[in-house]
Structures are given as structure tokens and as C-alpha cells.
């Protein structure tokens, strides 16, 4: 395992698809705590230093383009990076924004996003929390690639959850909507136990340190006055801690884009759309392109 790591780091990412995107590098919360952060982005060492309300990002003394959005510092090596996607819920004043942590994972960004979109593993990997045997069925749902927004949208997703709400012990079907507005970022909307008319937002923003090494930034933007930040963080960390060994045992680590690399089933509609979408962008870094 450890031996495999060196070889891939020698070449710096030169994939225009990755270079022309904004990438999360640190949460404002983490930055506030330590004042600075040294990390990796697309095989390059970067340093983020807090400055006023924002931050400056440097790579080998050179300034790197950056912006602050959704509680994170985002950086890009591109000339004219694509504007960052919109998540309007972050602007709703009555929502709570909780950073649930950042975890290092030995996997490609694509594998992590695909796992975030996946419901079929709930009864196995998140047994007793997000799912429970024998209720294993993934019911049919809709997936579309939104042309005007260039993102993947999966709607009408439903899954049986043993504890549908904090307040109840009874199981019920929970509704989900997934959005993938960025190759390495995904947002999940889930029915709010507090307000039936609104949806909680759970996000994963993946910082690709290298092709097979990521920092996964997770958090929530929710309507909930009952739970403490600590409870919300523990819950989300438990979930992510369960996914981590699965991600690190996916083999190969880079996401294969060839349709014949793995065996999809109907439940994998969103993953298939995601792989096609990445392939259509011409992405080659962090993935195994089709036909290789």
C-alpha cells in the first residue's frame, strides 16, 4: 500500500479540466483555529494564510487565485476558472451551518463522490443508521444532466431508514435529492425532520490532493434547533468513518470511466450518469479514461 504512493506524485496534474475548477482547500473554521494551513492540491504543495475575513493561498511563494464561499477557501490554478456553483440554501438565515470535519482518504475524488451518491450500501455500510437489512431495495429514481447548469441531478430518490428522525424509533422511507454541480463536489437534500416543507443540505467538497489521495470536507446546512453541533458532527463523522475503509479498499483507486470496467445495476443510474459526465468533460486525471 504505502509503496504505491510515491510513483504517482512525481508528475504534477496538468489536466485542464481540473486546473480550470475552483477547489476547496480549507474551511474557514479550521483556518481560524490554526491561522494557516499547509496542504496539497492537484499534486502541488499550497499554503493558506488567514487574512482579514478571507485568506491568501500560495504555491511555492507564488500567489494562487482564491475566493471564500460556503465557509471554505477555494483555490484554482486556472487562468479563468469556471464560476463556483450555487447552493442558495447557504444564504438562508435560519439555517445552521456545521462543518463536520475534514478527513484524509486514500482514494480518488471520483470514487468518493460516487459513494456519496450511492444508496444501495446504506443497509450494509451504515447498518442501523441510514439503512437496515432486510430493507435493501433501491427504488427507481430519476437522473438528468441539467444542460443549462451543467450538473447532475438525481430526484425521486427514496430509501428506507430505520430511524427516520431523531425523535422517532420507527423506520420510514426518506426522500433524497442529489446534485453534482462540480466534478469533485456533491450536495444532498434530505427531508428535514423539523420542517416537512424544507430540505436539509449535506455536502461533500473533495479536495484532490493527488490522483489517489483526497481531503474530504463534509458538513451540513440544516434546519434544526434541537441538536447540538457536537451531535451533528458525531453523526456525520460516524457515517464518514464507515465509508472510509470501503473507499480505501476500492481497487483500482482511480475511478474507471470505461463502461465495461465494472458492473452497474439500475440502482447505479446516478453513478453511470456521473461517469459519463466526467468522460464528456475529457477528464483524465484521477480517473481511468475509457479505452485505456
Amino acid at each position, binding site marked *: 500500500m504505502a*509503496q*504505491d504512493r510515491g*510513483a504517482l506524485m512525481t508528475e504534477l496534474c496538468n489536466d485542464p479540466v481540473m486546473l480550470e475548477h475552483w477547489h476547496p482547500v480549507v474551511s474557514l473554521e479550521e483556518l481560524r483555529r490554526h491561522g494557516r494551513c499547509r496542504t496539497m492540491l492537484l499534486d502541488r504543495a499550497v499554503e493558506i494564510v488567514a487574512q482579514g475575513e478571507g485568506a491568501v493561498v500560495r504555491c511555492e511563494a507564488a500567489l494562487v487565485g482564491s475566493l471564500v464561499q460556503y465557509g471554505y477557501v477555494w483555490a484554482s490554478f486556472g487562468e479563468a476558472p469556471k464560476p463556483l456553483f450555487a447552493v442558495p440554501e447557504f444564504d438562508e438565515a435560519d439555517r445552521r451551518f456545521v462543518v463536520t470535519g475534514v478527513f484524509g482518504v486514500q482514494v480518488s475524488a471520483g470514487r468518493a463522490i*460516487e459513494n456519496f451518491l450511492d*444508496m*444501495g*450500501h446504506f*443497509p*450494509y*455500510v451504515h447498518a442501523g443508521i441510514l439503512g437496515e*437489512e*432486510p*430493507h*435493501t*431495495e*433501491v427504488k427507481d429514481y430519476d437522473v438528468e444532466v441539467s444542460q443549462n447548469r451543467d450538473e447532475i441531478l438525481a430526484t425521486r430518490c427514496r430509501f428506507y431508514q430505520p430511524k427516520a428522525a431523531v425523535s422517532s424509533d420507527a423506520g420510514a422511507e426518506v426522500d433524497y435529492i442529489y446534485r453534482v454541480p462540480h466534478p469533485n463536489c456533491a450536495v444532498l437534500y434530505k427531508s428535514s425532520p423539523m420542517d416537512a416543507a424544507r430540505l436539509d443540505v449535506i455536502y461533500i467538497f473533495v479536495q484532490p490532493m493527488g490522483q489517489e489521495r483526497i481531503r474530504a470536507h463534509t458538513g451540513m446546512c440544516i434546519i434544526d434547533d434541537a441538536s447540538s453541533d457536537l451531535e451533528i458532527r458525531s453523526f456525520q463523522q460516524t457515517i464518514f468513518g464507515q465509508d472510509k*475503509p*470501503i473507499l480505501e*479498499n*476500492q*481497487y*483500482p483507486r482511480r475511478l*474507471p470511466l*470505461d*463502461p*465495461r*470496467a*465494472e*458492473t*452497474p*445495476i*439500475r*440502482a*447505479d*443510474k446516478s453513478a*453511470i450518469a456521473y461517469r459519463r459526465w466526467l468522460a464528456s468533460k475529457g477528464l483524465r486525471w484521477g480517473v481511468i479514461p475509457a479505452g485505456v
Partner: protein
Amino acid sequence: MMDLAGWHPIAAATDVVRRHVFHGQLLGREVAVWRADDGFVNVWENRCLHRGVRLSMGLNDGRELRCLYHGWRYANRSAGCTYIPAHPADAPARRICNRTYPGVEAAGMIWSAVAPEAEFALPEVLVGTDPLVLRPVSVNAAPGVALSMAEGLVPGGSVARGASVLFGQAGLVVFVQPLDAHRCVLRGVLLRQPEDRIAALRDHDGLLCALREGIEAAGEAAPAPLEVSFQPVDEALGQMPARGVGGGELRVQVTRKWAAAEGIVGVQLRALRGVLPTFQPGAHIDVHLPNGMRRPYSIVNAPGEEGYTIGVKRDDAGRGGSICLHDAVRQGDVLAISAPRNTFPLRRDSERVLLIAGGIGITPMLAMAQALAVQGIAYALHVFARSAAHVPFAERLEGLAVTRHLGLDAAQTGAALSGILSGYAFSHHVYACGPAPMLSAARQIAAAQGWTEEAVHLEYFANPEAIDDSSAFEIALARSAMTLQVPAGRTILQVLQENGVDLPSSCEQGACGTCVCGVLEGDVAHQDVYLSASEHAANDRIMTCVSRAKSARLVLDI
């Protein structure tokens, strides 16, 4: 380049203990090695075909290996997928099979090869010995480096077969298992059982550990790991499927034929070569009989057992299939069969399952009960028969949760069914197979007791209804851009087959569900007993062997 053809020891026999999955590697290829409860040692590529998760993390339940990620189950021996929990109502339509490597257990070790060019042959030095296998010692160094340094381990060593060193006087052989270009395992074997086994194991372990230290301390630059590519899955598997159908013909041998009960023979079929495809509980095979007939029979055994076992009831009034199997087919005969198809799939996302068998209808229920028992899902098997002597495969009922209902008349059967079917709750399912009157009664009683239609699964032996084939109509094939006429006296299926449209079929009387086809336009005159009332009303599928059109034209999704 390393030689991929050679056989190497990849584990000790004692590494593959009961209900465990050993994590091994050979020439850069990772393997998951597991022993089923029947003793068979499986050597599989260490990744689930679904999402690439290592199977060495999986769960060995004795018959099947379950992937940790999505609970996919793969059968002992065949490595075929038997169940996909995300789609519990589907039979896995496609033949999904993990990559396997050959595995041979010999001389206390498990041997395998990446791309063997010859059958396994035990290295000559081990032939006729009762060896003591030493503790494996893994080394962070290239196999070639380890091999040449191992030669100096004790005086008189010589490299044999390119992958092992023999120390004749010491009665020791050291096999160097190439894990990868830069890593290997020293697998030592003593050719004779020593007097003090533990002392010999410890002494030689010390020797091998010292050897490892020497090799690693020599600090030879390790080469880069081997590039391993993965074989792509079949084109059909790369597509997201709707529903599919089973494949072509297989040749099997009748390895056993016996009287399983009054008027019923058991027939055990084994592959002529290799391993038969994996099937799911509830699946059937079509047997091509010497008299030219083709008849479907449910598989009695559960996935993970070798071969297929079927049960055949003699039906003197039938069309002749059962008589031929009873009278003409003998042990040792070779028969052609279809690949298993499952039109009676067992959902395993249930909290409680009732299995109801009438007579020979017990055959699919045995496979289902065994699968449910292994998986720990609550179930009850109810067997209806004329007498105990009429219950076949009694030996398979041992250990199952079975209740026998013997010698009941129609009214008594109805009363018994009422009792069995009381207490329906969400997530309960009932499966029944038996004579038509019993199934009709079960359907009515279940409905009266509040069972939803989706929770009641019936398999008919035959369609009890008289088929009306007097209508004539037109069919348009949407995908093949063909329009065909179906005259009175011919079925849609016959017309399709005559025109070269390949649609699998089996019972050809609207009972088994094999010849199903999607309907895009037109009104269907359903005459099958496979689809439920609401499925009939949905008007989107047709059993092409018996059902016809009410409208002048049907547009089929084929």
C-alpha cells in the same frame, strides 16, 4: 517480465480456516481465498465486479461470499452472483461472475497460477512426501533477489523450478512466492515430519526470519510494482440492464438418479467440463430430453452446491417429458440443458417468508428454504402431500423449519392454508408452488386475509385454463422494425421464432414467465397465470406463448 504461467503456493492450507477470507497476492494480482463449508477452496480476483471493493473484506457464510459494500452474494465454486439486494424482486438477469484463478490444495498448501499453460503438477520434490509447512515469511524485496540469497541459507542449496530452493540434506524446500515485482513470501516446507514438530517449526522460522533480515538489509533497489490491468466485463454487463434472459445450452451428465419419493425421481446433473452457471433459488432449467421434448424443472439444491439437482414426478397423463426422464434417462447419460433462468425470484428483503409446497411443488421451495436459513431470515416451509412417502428429498428437509400437512382433502387444505396465511404484516412474503387448485385457493385466501398482491408469489406447474387461440391480429416489433401477422391457431411466440426473432421460452403454456415481452401499444388478451391481476391490468407485458391481442394490432418492445 515475470512468468505468469507458473504455479506457486499462495497460502498454507491452514491459512484458509472455516468462515474466513484470506488476502493473498500473486504477481501483482490480489486474490481473495476462501474455503466453503464443503471444503472447496475458492481463489478469486480480489475485487467485487460491481464497484471494485476488495472481497477479502467480505463475509464467508459457508456457501457464499458476501461483499461488504452492497451485500452482493457470490456462490462457492462458480463465483457467480446469486443475489443483488438493491433489486430484491429481480433475478439477477445477467450472468455476473467474479474472475477466478485456478486453485489446487496439495501438500498442505494452496497453489495457483495467473495464466497457467499446463494443469497443476505437484513439484517433484514434494511427490510422495508428508510435508510440514513452515510459517510463511513475507519479504520486502524482489522475488529474484530473495531466491538467489536463499540459496546460501544452508550449505548445499540449489535453485529448482525457477521459484524454489531445495536443501537436500536438510530436507527443506523454500518456495519463493512472487507477490509482486518488489515483494515476495518465503514458504518453507520440511519434507519429513520431524519428531518435535513445534521445535522444528520454531527453529526453521528463525532461519527464515534471519534470511529475510539479510535480504532486506542487502538493500537491493526494489523494482516498481507490476502494472496490473483488469479484464473488462462483458459488453452486456457494462450496460445498465432492464431485465435480461438466460443464455444458451449447456452439456451435463446425469451423475445420479434415484427414487426420491413415491412416483418421483431425483436427478443430479454435473457439468461435463468446468463449473455450471450460478443460479438463484427459484430458478429452473430446461432439460432437452432424448425424445426431443424440452421441459422446465426447478433446481432443488441451493447455490454454492456443486451441480444441479432436479425432481421429476411421473405424470402418465402428461405430454411425455416426465415419462421419458423416468424410463429412458439413466445415470451416465449426457443431456443438454438451458442455462438457469429465474422467473420465480426470491426476495430476501423480507422480515418473514412463508413457503407453501404442494407435492412436487416442493422443488423450488427447498432451494429457497436453504437460502433463507443460511441468511438467517425468518421463514416457515409448509409441505402438502398425500403421505410421508410422497414427500421427496426428505434428507434435505432436515434442519429446515418445515411443517408437513399430509393426506388432506380440498376443504382441509383450504383450512390449513387459512391458518398458515393468517397474520400478514408489512414486509412478509409468501411463495407457493403446487397444483393449480391449491394455488388458486392460496391466492384467494391470501387476498381475503389482507395480503397485498406484490407479497404473493405463485408458480404454476401448468396453466389450468383452456387457451383460446382463435383470434387473428397483427404485431409490430418496435425495435426490429418488422410487422408480422399472427393467424388463428398460431401463437405470437411461434410467429416470432419462425421469423428469426430470438425470444427464449420454456413451458409454452403461460406458466413460467420466460417468454415475457414488453407491450408499447394495443390491448392484450391475457391468458397466462404468471402475471398478477394488476400486472394484467397494467397492459405493459405479455406472455407471448399464450396471450393474444384484443385490438387489431399490438406493438411489442422487441
